[in-house]
C-alpha cells in the first residue's frame, strides 16, 4: 500500500493540476523536435539554391553549390531522428511497403523519397556530371573510381550534352521549388492536422513551418559559407553575403508576421483552450518562447538585419555580425520547433493541468543522441565538399550555359 502511494507521489510530483494518466510522460521528445528542424534546413537551403538558378540572383552564385550539398547532406539524415525514436527501428521500412492513404506519416515517406531522389539527387547529378567527367580524367585512384561511378561511366561533355544537362537541371529546380514547399509544408501539416491539440491545430501551421524552414535554411548556408571561406582562407564575397542577408531579412519578416498573426488570432478567438495555453506560454514556455525564439531568434536578428538595409558597418564587423545572426536564427528556429513539439504536450487536453519534461543526457532519447543527428549531416557535408567542391567547378563555355 505504502509503495503504491509512494510511486503515485513520484509520478504526481511532475504534475500541476489535473492531467490524464497518458499525458504525464511526454512521448515525443527531443528527437521529434529535430525532425521538423532538420527537414526545414533542407527545404530552406534548397530555396536559397533556387534563388540563384530560377530567379537569376546570380550574385548568390558562390553559395549555390554549398546550398545544394547542404540540403542533400541534411536530407539524408532527416528521417534518422524519427527512426531512432521508434521502439522497433528495424520495422521502419513497413511504412513504405504497406502504406495507408489515410496516414499522414506513411505518405510523408513518399514525399521524402520524391524530394530526395527526383529533386535533390537529380539536380546535383545534372549540375556536376560534366565536372565529374573532367575530374575523373584529372585524378587517380579511389577518387577517380568514385567520379566514374557517380557519373555512371558517361563521357559525353560536348556543348550539346552539357546544354541539355543545364536545361533538365533547370526543369528539376522548377519542380523542386513546389516540392520543397510540399516537403516542409507537409511536416507542418502533420502537426497542424492534430485537431485534439489546440496548440498545434491551426491551418497556418504548414505555412509557418515553411517560412521558418526557409529562414533556418538560409541562415545555415550563410553560416557554412562564412566558416568555409574562413577555413579555406579566402576573401569572402561581401556582396553575396549582403544579398543573402537581405533575403533572410525579408523572409524573417514574413515568418515573424505569420507567427504573430497566428498568436493574435488565438488571443482574439480566445477559445476554451485559451486559458491553459496562456498559462503555458507565460509559465513553462516563457524562457524558450520569449527569449530563445522571440528575442534572440527573431527580434534581435530582425532589428540588426533591418538596420543593415540602411546603414552598413565595416565589412569585418558585418561579417562577424552575420555569423552571430545566422547562429542566433538557427538556435531560434530550433526553439520554435521545441515550443511547438514539447509545448503541445506539456498541457493536459482536459485544459486543467500541466506535466513537466526533462530530457536526460544519455539513452536513445537523450541530448547526446540528438547531438549525433545534428553532427552527422556536417560530416556528410564535409565529405561531399571534398568530393564535389563547388569552387573547383570549371567555367562553362558561354554557349552551353543554356537557360
Amino acid at each position, binding site marked *: *500500500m505504502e509503495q503504491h502511494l509512494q510511486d503515485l507521489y513520484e509520478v504526481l510530483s511532475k504534475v500541476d493540476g489535473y492531467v490524464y494518466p497518458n499525458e504525464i510522460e511526454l512521448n515525443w521528445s527531443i528527437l521529434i523536435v529535430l525532425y521538423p528542424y532538420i527537414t526545414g534546413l533542407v527545404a530552406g537551403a534548397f530555396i536559397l539554391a533556387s534563388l540563384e538558378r530560377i530567379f537569376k540572383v546570380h550574385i548568390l552564385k558562390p553559395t549555390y553549390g554549398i546550398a545544394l550539398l547542404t540540403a542533400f547532406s541534411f536530407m539524408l539524415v532527416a528521417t534518422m531522428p524519427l527512426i531512432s525514436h521508434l521502439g522497433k527501428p528495424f520495422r521502419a521500412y*513497413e511504412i513504405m511497403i504497406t502504406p495507408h492513404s489515410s496516414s499522414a506519416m506513411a505518405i510523408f515517406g513518399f514525399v521524402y523519397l520524391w524530394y530526395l*531522389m527526383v529533386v535533390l539527387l537529380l539536380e546535383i*547529378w545534372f549540375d556536376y*556530371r560534366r565536372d565529374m567527367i573532367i575530374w575523373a580524367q584529372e585524378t587517380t585512384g579511389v577518387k577517380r573510381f568514385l567520379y566514374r561511378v557517380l557519373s*555512371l561511366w*558517361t563521357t*559525353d561533355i560536348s556543348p550539346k*550534352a552539357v546544354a541539355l544537362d543545364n536545361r*533538365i537541371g533547370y526543369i528539376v529546380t522548377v519542380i523542386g521549388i513546389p516540392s520543397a514547399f510540399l516537403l516542409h509544408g507537409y511536416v507542418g501539416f502533420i502537426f497542424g492536422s492534430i485537431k485534439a491539440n489546440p496548440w498545434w491545430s491551426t491551418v497556418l501551421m504548414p505555412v509557418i513551418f515553411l517560412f521558418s524552414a526557409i529562414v533556418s535554411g538560409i541562415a545555415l548556408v550563410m553560416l557554412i559559407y562564412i566558416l568555409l571561406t574562413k577555413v579555406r582562407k579566402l576573401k569572402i564575397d561581401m556582396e553575396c553575403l549582403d544579398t543573402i542577408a537581405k533575403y533572410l531579412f525579408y523572409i524573417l519578416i514574413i515568418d515573424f508576421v505569420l507567427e504573430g498573426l497566428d498568436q493574435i488570432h488565438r488571443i482574439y478567438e480566445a477559445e476554451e483552450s485559451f486559458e491553459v495555453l496562456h498559462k503555458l506560454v507565460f509559465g513553462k514556455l516563457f524562457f524558450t518562447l520569449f527569449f530563445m525564439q522571440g528575442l534572440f531568434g527573431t527580434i534581435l536578428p530582425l532589428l540588426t538585419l533591418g538596420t543593415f538595409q540602411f546603414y552598413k558597418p565595416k565589412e569585418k564587423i558585418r561579417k562577424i555580425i552575420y555569423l552571430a545572426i545566422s547562429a542566433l536564427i538557427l538556435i531560434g528556429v530550433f526553439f520554435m520547433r521545441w515550443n511547438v513539439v514539447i509545448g503541445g504536450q506539456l498541457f493536459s487536453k482536459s485544459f486543467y493541468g500541466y506535466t513537466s519534461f526533462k530530457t536526460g543526457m544519455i539513452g536513445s532519447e537523450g541530448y547526446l543522441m540528438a547531438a549525433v543527428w545534428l553532427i552527422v549531416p556536417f560530416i556528410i557535408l564535409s565529405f561531399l565538399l571534398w568530393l564535389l567542391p563547388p569552387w573547383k567547378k570549371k567555367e562553362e563555355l558561354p554557349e552551353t550555359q543554356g537557360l
Partner: protein
Amino acid sequence: MPQHLKRLIGVFAVFIILFLILHYLLTPSSFGELGHYRAKAIPENAFKELHYAGSEQCSKCHEDIRKDKAIGFHAKLKCEVCHGPGLKHALYAGQFKAGQLPDSLLLYKPAERKDCAICHQFNAARLKIQFDTINTSMIHQINAIEHNPFDKITKVEFKCIECHNPHQP
C-alpha cells in the same frame, strides 16, 4: 536520346524494379485479403491461450453469489476483475471436492485493505458518487489510510470486508 540520359533512366528503372521486388517480397502473404492489415493476424490472435472464463461460467457453480451480487453496487462488476483470470478453475475445479482444490486451480481472494483501495482509494480525477443516486458507474471513494483503520481498543487493523460484504457492499 543522349547516352547519359539513357543510363540515368536505366538507374531509375533498376531502383523502381528493386523497390517493386522488395515490395513483393516484404508484403505479408495475407495482407489486404480482408482489409488494410494481415488477414492471418486474426487466427494468430484467436488461437492465443485463453485465460478468462466470463461471469456466466462462474454462476454455473456459484449461483448464490451471483444472486447476492445482482442487487448491490458491484452488480456490473465481473467476477474475474477481483478474483483474477479463472478459465482453468472453471474448466477443472468441478472434478475436485470442495476444499480439496490444488493450488494451481485456486483463485485469488482479495481480502486486504490494499485490494479494495485499488478502486476505492480517493482519486480527484474520478467521478464522485452522489448519495441521492444509485448510479453504479460512479465509485465510492475513501481514504484507505484514514477510513476506520483499526479497532480503537485492540489496535488491530480492520479489513474492509469485516464491515462490507464485497459481493454486496
